[in-house]
């Protein structure tokens, strides 16, 4: 490979501040989208386990519709197809206030909400039926049983797959560059434009994503230990068996 590496491009000029800006935007869009995804995921995941068929059906439609279309298509959908349907003043306001960011986190949040929904449903369904019956027999209503007993237990059970899904969400936020969101991948390309040093820029981006995801995974692993329910899920040390 006939290529001269020059790592100094990463800290000379504006590259450093671009990477920081990109990282901030990636974190912003990921956090907001994650909150949307968790809210939608819990709601639809719970609805998929209720006995009232129309609600179950509604949640099913949401999950199957949104998780089975590529994220890239959803990005274009929320950015290009939705704004023309809005009233003109709202459209103008959106275009002047970062429509691409809005479309980006809505697409990301709704898409990952559908995926998270399945994780939460499997968590709920892994809880023994007797737990549910016990909750109802103490006089709680159905909604209270879900809110106070079932969902809190389910959330403690699903931390490992939910971590997986959250890391995917962070990495998928890079798709938002297709609609012009200046996140981390976008900024690494920007550095490439200015310096023509593609390998260096991509390496920097790779390491930042790796560090970010490792940090999130570490936090989630702490949470998992802290909230593990003895007897239902236990984090064992390697070689304990």
């Amino acid at each position, binding site marked *: *490979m*006939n290529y001269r590496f020059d790592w100094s491009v990463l800290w000379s000029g504006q590259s450093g501040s671009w990477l920081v800006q990109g990282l901030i935007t990636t974190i912003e869009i990921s956090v907001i989208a994650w909150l949307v995804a968790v809210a939608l995921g819990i709601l639809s995941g719970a609805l998929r386990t209720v006995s009232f068929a129309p609600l179950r059906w509604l949640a099913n439609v949401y999950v199957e519709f949104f998780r089975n279309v590529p994220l890239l298509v959803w990005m274009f959908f929320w950015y*290009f197809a939705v*704004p023309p349907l809005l009233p003109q003043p709202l459209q103008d306001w959106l275009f002047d206030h970062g429509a691409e960011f809005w479309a980006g986190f809505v697409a990301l949040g709704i898409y990952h909400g559908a995926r998270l929904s399945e994780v939460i449903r499997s968590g709920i369904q892994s809880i023994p039926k007797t737990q549910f019956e016990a909750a109802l027999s103490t006089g709680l209503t159905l909604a209270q049983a879900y809110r106070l007993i079932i969902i809190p237990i389910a959330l403690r059970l699903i931390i490992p797959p939910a971590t997986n899904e959250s890391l995917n969400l962070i990495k998928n936020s890079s798709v938002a560059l297709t609609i012009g969101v200046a996140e981390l991948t976008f900024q690494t390309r920007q550095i490439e434009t200015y310096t023509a040093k*593609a390998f260096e820029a991509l390496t920097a981006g790779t390491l930042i994503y790796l560090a970010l995801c490792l940090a999130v995974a570490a936090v989630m692993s702490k949470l998992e230990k802290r909230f593990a329910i003895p007897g239902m899920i236990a984090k064992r040390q390697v070689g304990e068996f």
Partner: protein
Amino acid sequence: MKRLLLFLASLVTVSGNITAAVAETTLEKISRTGALTIGTRTGSPPFAFVNRNNEWVGFSIDLVEQAIMPIVAKKTGKEIKIEKKESTPQTRIPLLTANAVDLIAETMTDTQSRRDSVDFSLTFFATGAQFLVKKGSPIKGLQSIAGRRVAAQQGSTNARIIRERVPNAKLLEFPDQPAAFQALVQGQVQAYTNDGIQLAGLKAKAPKPDEWIVVGEFFSYEPYGMAMRKNDSDFRQVVNVGLMEAIASGKYFELYDKWFGPKSDVPYPLAPETKRFLQMQVVPK
């Protein structure tokens, strides 16, 4: 953690070693494989695009096929075929340096910083950045975009100039021309900036070409060159001789007329000073 760091360090070392291993020149590679692989665009009419008959054609591709290939064949003494791969502003330099393609022939602007990574042929086309707007738009050029939403292509030199010269313009960057044009059609942005010739090509391909207009003086200088791996002067000589002979023999101007002449899809008359500039790049035999 320590083990992870060691692993990463070893990865870096290994990739560093690969750098030194390969030492085949481009002409040797072409001679061995019997093919010249070029990186080119699929959506940049009329330089390189897929036309209505699903053929991958364009001015840049014609220059390679009709001006450079004969010299390559003569130099290697073999029948050489041409292979095309898609390249984008983000992938073209890595494609070259990874030996996936031998020549970038599309709409790549020759710049000083890019010359640190690749070598360029002589300039085969010169244009400058302008704006594509809806007819009747108040935007008339670089002076009237302050505070307005403007689209540019990611990785283009134009975006960079706007950011530097009109920092309060709201710049939105899209990965490709179709996405940027869609944003312009829907009103997400009020203007789209790119090299004037590319905007003319886009306008010609639009569903209703009369609705759009290219405005403004050139606010940048965009000399297009063909890019090659660095430090391979034999191959660069072949490419340059091909281009020079085409300009000297008039073949270049025939091709220009085919793609930019009055009867073409994108009429774009060759300015006399540009013609003179092209001719002055031809050094004596």
